[in-house]
């Protein structure tokens, strides 16, 4: 269970989050939706410690994450797929994955966990020794996700994983996420511009507008509310 309470973040004079609170149940997917600049990325970055918070706490399970350095948060089982993926282009596909697994697994175990990722994303297997700079946008996105799940996190933060992907690939991706969540008792926060596809797999939805939570409800309820959809989600 992830509990975010009264989280505020500012970049200089820009108040990006104003007292955001939300909960995400273990084994569920929570879609985090909202317009450009709403504060979705900032929320994820605050949870994984990449930006410092003014007020509020983030608890995951029995741990308080607030104030911990990023790498310790990651090592408490938080996987973060940042906006744009940020694969390390100077390293090969396999090296990117190795790095994701290295804090948790010894050399011998890593090979097995890398293979799990290759099963999820066969395209990566064929390119395992290629530099990540040679991957297509969709392949990079797969690598970014593979790199985060290879260490079997218990909380997965995904920032627009479908960015720039063809609809069919997005659908595949969503299916993979659903499968991972079911298999691994994973808690997922899924930030998406593509609200429709996010709502199709999410259990819960949180809509953020100008740094505050405006709606927090079951995904079906949000998807069914046409006023809300028109107003905040544009479909």
């Amino acid at each position, binding site marked *: 269970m992830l509990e975010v309470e009264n989280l505020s973040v500012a970049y200089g004079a820009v108040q990006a989050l104003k007292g955001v609170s939300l909960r995400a149940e273990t084994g569920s997917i929570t879609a985090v939706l909202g317009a450009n600049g709403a504060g979705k990325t900032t929320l994820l970055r605050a949870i*994984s410690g*990449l930006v410092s918070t003014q007020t509020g706490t983030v608890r995951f399970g029995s741990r308080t994450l607030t104030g911990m*350095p*990023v*790498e310790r948060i*990651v*090592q408490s089982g938080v996987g*973060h797929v*940042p906006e744009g993926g*940020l*694969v*390390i*282009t*100077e*390293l090969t596909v396999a*090296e990117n994955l*190795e*790095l*994701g697994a*290295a*804090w*948790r697994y010894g*050399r011998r175990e890593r090979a097995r966990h890398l293979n799990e990722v290759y099963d999820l994303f066969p395209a990566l297997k064929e390119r395992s020794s290629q530099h990540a*700079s040679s991957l297509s946008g969709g392949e990079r996105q797969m690598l970014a996700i593979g*790199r*985060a799940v290879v*260490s079997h996190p218990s909380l997965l933060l995904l920032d627009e994983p479908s960015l720039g992907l063809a609809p069919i690939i997005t659908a595949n991706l969503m299916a993979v996420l659903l499968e991972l969540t079911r298999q691994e008792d994973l808690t997922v926060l899924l930030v998406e511009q593509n609200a429709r596809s996010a709502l199709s797999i999410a259990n819960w939805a949180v809509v953020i507008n100008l740094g505050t939570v405006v709606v927090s409800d079951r995904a079906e309820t949000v998807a069914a509310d046409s006023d809300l959809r028109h107003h905040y989600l544009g479909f």
Partner: protein
Amino acid sequence: MRLFVNITLGGVAEGLIFSSVALGLVLIFRATNIINFAQGAMAMLTTFIAFSVLGKGVGYWPAFLVALACGLLLGGVVQLTLVRPVQNKPPLNAVIVTFGLLIFLEGIAGAIWGNTNRGFPAAFSQKGLVVGKTAVAFSHFDIFIVVAVLALSILVGVLFRFTTVGLRMRAAAFAPEAARLLGVRVGRLLTLGWALAAVAGALAGLLVAPTSVFSPGYMDLILVYAFTAAVLGGLDSPLGALVGGVITGLALAYVGGYLGGSLQPIGALVLLIVVLMIRPEGIFSQPTARRV
């Protein structure tokens, strides 16, 4: 012909010394985007420590190891105390800090050991080898230089290419934020990077000292040449540092041998300008990795 061979051999040995200083500059630059102007002065300090240890009569090799160990420690301490506070500040801050450290270390060394020119012993004979019946300008000590610098380069190469620590160091250098999101303790690796760089420097200090006058400023000119070598190699490529050092050493040897030793610093400058004009990213730099 004999002159040419001798000059070439001397150039290679001299160049490999530049390589080891350049390797230190590159390790630091690619990890922290900082040019360490104190790289030579730090090497000078560890070599003077070895000099004092030698004075206690412990023999060359223990003193050699003491210098390398002090380098490891000094590099780590410098990073933790001086460099970390300026790490994410404007680049000029780091320039001032490392340049200040250069002046500070040379001042300290002058105060402790005096500014007189001394001699530093060599590990092996510096007399030219005899091949057939002719003596060449390449000594046992020069062979030691080649072996030591190549061994260090191979060690660094293996560390980066084949170990998990090396993988983490590369990730931390190329993409610190992405690396942190993968559980890499970037801060620690930067300290380790400085420590390794200072070991490379300490080795260079020990290799240069017997071939020149030994005083607190004896690494100054070497740093200039090593910087030339590092830029030649692309500033972020360890292999580039190695090759860049040899090219610089050869170029300076030919200038010195055929045109006169006093022209060498100008030769280095010309080389630097030519490289910056023809291939500003250096010979071995991966363009995607370059951030300046």
